[in-house]
């Protein structure tokens, strides 16, 4: 079972929580300056080290040997950043079976150790990623300094190398025009706000990612605790906003949500953006406790399956835009039909 098929805390607002540690190995230049020979040597060193630690849990994929569709599908599941899809340097990903723990080799840093969990699970993600980061230090010579901490290619990651982020669904705050103010407050206080696909992406489907900006001067546990405090308040705000919205415009809100569900259940052609936005409405319907709406785990699974890369991967062939829209509509429609049938029986 993949991590996104599991339940997590506060799933009405938080889709997923990620923790990643940036680490580099002594004696090598940072990835953007490594030649192909050193790239292969470092990759081999890391893979051997991980296999020594835990030979069964991880399997390795080399991005250069993957086709475009498979790489897109990885980016859609937040396992690599979209910028890496077209990278010429060979990067590798070590990943466990349920895809909640991974090591990306040669992204901006030599190692990006990532744990991802459903819902708001900062402690679980932190402990899992930290355990692997610490274990890797016992088998690899990690670059660190008594004064600066863990050394990274970009000075924005130095110190703990920790980035903790949560993907949030915030239709209520958007409806009340609160997002801009909330985002400004967060940015002023040392947090970064980005769109659904992270760095450089725009906000879509009423979703945004919040992460820590400061990585130095506090322990990783302190950074996680600060993040938890801020996020718990943000979650509460979003719930209040939704409640207020529902009280003020119940019929309009019901109409919007049930229309989106009807589109997903009946369309013959649907683009990614429209499907994504309709799923966002369905998610809100589920959170508001409306009758006949699928579970968060099903909505998240469907969100991953309908991506441009993932839909082609599922169909097993390259599809043009219209073919993708047909395949996507068919998949979603079947899903909703199955859901209704299962409920009836």
């Amino acid at each position, binding site marked *: 079972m993949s991590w996104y098929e599991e339940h997590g805390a506060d799933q009405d607002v938080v889709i997923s929580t990620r923790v990643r540690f940036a680490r*580099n190995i*002594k004696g090598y*230049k*940072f990835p*953007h*300056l490594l030649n192909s020979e050193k790239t292969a040597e470092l990759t081999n060193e890391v893979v051997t080290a991980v296999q020594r630690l835990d030979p069964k849990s991880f399997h390795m994929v080399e991005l250069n040997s993957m086709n475009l569709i498979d790489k897109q599908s990885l980016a859609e599941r937040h396992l690599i950043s979209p910028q890496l899809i077209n990278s010429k340097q060979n990067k590798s990903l070590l990943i466990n079976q349920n895809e909640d723990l991974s090591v990306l080799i040669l992204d*901006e840093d030599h190692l990006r150790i990532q744990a991802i969990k459903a819902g708001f699970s900062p*402690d*679980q993600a932190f*402990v899992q990623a*930290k*355990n692997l980061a*610490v*274990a890797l230090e*016992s088998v690899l*010579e*990690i*670059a*660190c*300094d008594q*004064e*600066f*901490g*863990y*050394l990274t*290619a*970009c*000075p*924005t990651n*130095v*110190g*703990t190398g920790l980035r903790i982020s949560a993907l949030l669904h915030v239709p209520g705050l958007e409806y*009340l*025009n*609160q997002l801009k*103010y*909330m985002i400004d*407050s*967060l940015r*002023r*206080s*040392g947090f970064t706000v980005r769109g659904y696909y992270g760095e450089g992406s725009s906000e879509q489907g009423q979703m945004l990612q919040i992460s820590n900006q*400061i*990585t*130095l*001067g*506090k*322990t990783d546990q302190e950074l996680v*605790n*600060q993040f938890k*405090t*801020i996020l*718990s*308040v*943000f979650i*509460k*705000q979003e719930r*209040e*906003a939704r409640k*207020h919205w529902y009280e003020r415009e119940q019929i309009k809100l019901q109409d919007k949500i049930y229309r989106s569900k009807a589109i997903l259940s009946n369309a013959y052609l649907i683009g990614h953006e429209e499907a994504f936005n309709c799923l966002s409405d369905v998610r809100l319907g589920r959170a508001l406790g409306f009758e006949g709406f699928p579970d968060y785990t099903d909505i998240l699974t469907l969100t991953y399956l309908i991506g441009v890369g993932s839909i082609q991967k599922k169909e097993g062939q390259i599809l043009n835009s219209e073919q993708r829209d047909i395949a996507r509509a068919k998949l979603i429609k079947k899903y909703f039909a199955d859901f209704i049938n299962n409920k009836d029986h």
Partner: protein
Amino acid sequence: MLCEKCHINEANISVKTNIHGVTKTYQLCSECAQKQGLFQSGFGFESFPMSNYLGQALFNFPFVTLNNQPKTIGTQIDKSIRCPACGQKYTDFRKTGLFGCPECYSTFHDVICSMLDQIHGGHIHNDTQIVPQNIDVEKVKPLTEIEQLKSELKEKVQLEQYEEAALIRDKIKELTAAEKSNPANNIESEIESEGDEK
């Protein structure tokens, strides 16, 4: 006196915070006070009766970037220096935003201190666990039940949900007493003082 945040402008505003019953006073310039969101008004709340919880929470650690660390802002660098390990110059960093190798941190030490002060509000790492040669994997364990409850308690106090906080505090006292009765554990409780502050 100088503003405690930017250390540049004259402080002309005194800001008092009350967190968990502990009152602190900060001397700020008006610019920094505004940047901290202390003078926000009219942000389109319409008739929405939402209290500014986020503002309150942020205020509980208003200076995320202030670490009371020595500041080195404004350090100059000799542009001809190359890192002996990777051959990169500081100008290369300016182009890419990335250093060449871990050694660059020694080569460009002073300017990096200055840069980190600006990015992170300090340049000194604070983590006692950084002893790579002596790492004991077994030591890094999931949060204990007490640690999780302490975190929840802090959150409830910040949200002023005192009834729920009291229940959590009692649970922590119970667990702490049980741990203390076990001679293998010697955990100091911080909860008594937190409870008294309320």
